């Protein structure tokens, strides 16, 4: 009995000792003196795998650097940035004026960098014969004014199940503003926790429809989308459509930095914007930045350095 307890207490002390020894007396929460080797990125469910891909490759090339990647929606990253809790917030939507103001109140100066592009795919089950939809039709479906696939010429389709991301995601906000005009969602829309959850649901659900980052499309048919009935329909699966602005629901992906990027943060940002970094974007299923987007970043760099 005593022996067991002694052993347990021994293990306990060892582990705690290990943790506290590793502390090195850094009594500062999350930022400041750890900046040199440690970069904390948080946010954007759409980008989290992309961030991870960057972080992993960057750490392989620079073993002495540490990058922590945390998920959650874009809102999460931005909230943490406002609270001075991270170095970089990944986001798939613009930061609002209000948020930038909140950050300033906490002495956090926010800088915006473009890092990649995403085409927002509208996915349906592979057996669904519907190929093309216009912006207006998408709105009808997602607001629930049209509820049956027969309205789009698929009589066996039955009632449409609408899948959406949850309100914390930049994807949701983007879709809500650009496609839905801020109107209410269909009554029985299902709000899923992540892009992949929607992709999984669409693999199962013959009558489903959902939207999410193109990097997540897997085993699902991506709908061709047109601005209106007189325009051509384009698929998000082709980089050209995104780069030339033909696909109506494409958007940039952002990094918001906590202050002017310096030290490890700057190095990591340079890596992300480098050719190698942009190759990794394609790996993760997204699209590289256009030259115009690179120019926007260059202008900002000229301004701050």
């Amino acid at each position, binding site marked *: 009995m005593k022996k067991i307890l002694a052993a347990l207490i021994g293990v306990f002390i060892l582990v705690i000792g290990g943790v506290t020894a590793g502390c090195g007396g850094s009594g500062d929460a999350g930022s400041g003196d750890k900046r040199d080797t440690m970069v904390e990125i948080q946010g954007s469910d759409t980008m989290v795998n992309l961030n991870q891909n960057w972080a992993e490759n960057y750490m392989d090339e620079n073993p002495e650097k540490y990058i922590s990647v945390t998920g959650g929606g874009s809102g999460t990253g931005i909230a943490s940035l406002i609270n001075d809790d991270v170095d970089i917030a990944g986001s798939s939507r613009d930061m609002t004026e209000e948020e930038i103001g909140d950050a300033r109140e906490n002495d956090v100066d926010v800088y915006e960098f473009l890092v990649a592009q995403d085409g927002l795919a509208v996915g349906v089950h592979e057996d669904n014969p519907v190929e093309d939809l216009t912006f207006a039709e998408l709105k009808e479906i997602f607001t629930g004014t049209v509820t049956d696939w027969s309205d789009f010429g698929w009589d066996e389709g039955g009632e449409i199940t609408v899948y959406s991301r949850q309100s914390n995601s930049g994807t949701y906000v983007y879709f809500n503003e650009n496609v839905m005009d801020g109107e209410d969602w269909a009554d029985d829309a299902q*709000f*899923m926790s992540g892009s992949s959850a929607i992709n999984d649901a669409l693999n199962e659900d013959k009558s489903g429809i959902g939207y999410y980052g193109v990097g997540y499309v897997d085993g699902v048919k991506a709908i061709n989308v047109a601005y209106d009935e007189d325009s051509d329909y384009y698929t998000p699966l082709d980089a050209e459509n995104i780069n030339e602005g033909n696909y109506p629901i494409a958007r940039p992906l952002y990094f918001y930095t906590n202050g002017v990027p310096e030290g490890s943060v700057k190095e990591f940002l340079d890596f992300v914007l480098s050719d190698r970094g942009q190759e990794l974007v394609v790996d993760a299923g997204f699209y590289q930045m256009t030259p115009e987007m690179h120019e926007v970043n260059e202008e900002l760099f000229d301004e701050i350095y």
Partner: protein
Amino acid sequence: MKSTKTLRIKNSLIRLYFTINGALAIIILLMIFFFLLNEGYPAIKEIGLGEFLFKSRWMPSSGDPGYGTLALILSTLIVAFGAMVISIPWGIVTAGYISEIAPKKIQEILKTTIETLAVFPSVVLGFIALTTVAPLVARIFGLSNGLTALTGSIMLSVMALPTIISISEDALNSVPKEYKEAAIAMGATRWEVLKKVTYPSASSGILAAVMLGFGRAIGETMTVLMATGNSLAMPMTDIHGIPFPDFLTSVRTLTATIAIEGSDVPWGSIHYHSLFVVGAILFVLTFIINLIADLAINRFKGGNG
């Protein structure tokens, strides 16, 4: 030789230290409650408690935001209630078997099993719901998507089972032996004793067990988050014009709402504060349920809990 004075001071200091430890529970409980109220107050001031409690449109990030939690409260209650329908008979019968019928060896096996179930992480049950139970539910009821209130209820019934069993078993064990012996002396069989004496005498203890199980089901987060699909619709359906809870539709509970949006809102926004109102509603709900359980236990023990 220490003087008695220092001894006395030392003793009263030691006593004070332990008293503070004892009072900690009260302090933490009050802190949690006031913290929720304090953080939720700006939202209540802005929106009014009426909308929170009696409206069912929860669209905090919409252009025209809605903060009604009625659908969330109803969903929470429906999923928990469904779980109870399964786990009350299951738990009470199992407790009766363990306490009154089972041979010693089997008793030990059952008790260990129930303890094992009690430490099952809720995320693991959520995962099993996602991979195994949801597809099963979809197949049995011919649904396109198996993430429903029913799926959540099935998983929660397993979550609540250990609570119901162990507390019911305590209640059954503390029924005085004399009652049972008297009944046996009158020629009753063991079954009759169990049915007519033991269960009725333990009824208020069993009520407490059921209430605590219900509270557990209401407060469960990960399992429902992963199992119910999180749609924001009212979880009701009309059967011949009479509203009736709909178990085959996707629902979103209070806990899932906090988990989804909790760390993902811009801090200090009305949406952020409204989540604390949701937390406070949840807190009050579980508090009332615990209070009922408490009263039942006190009645059971004859007034000195």
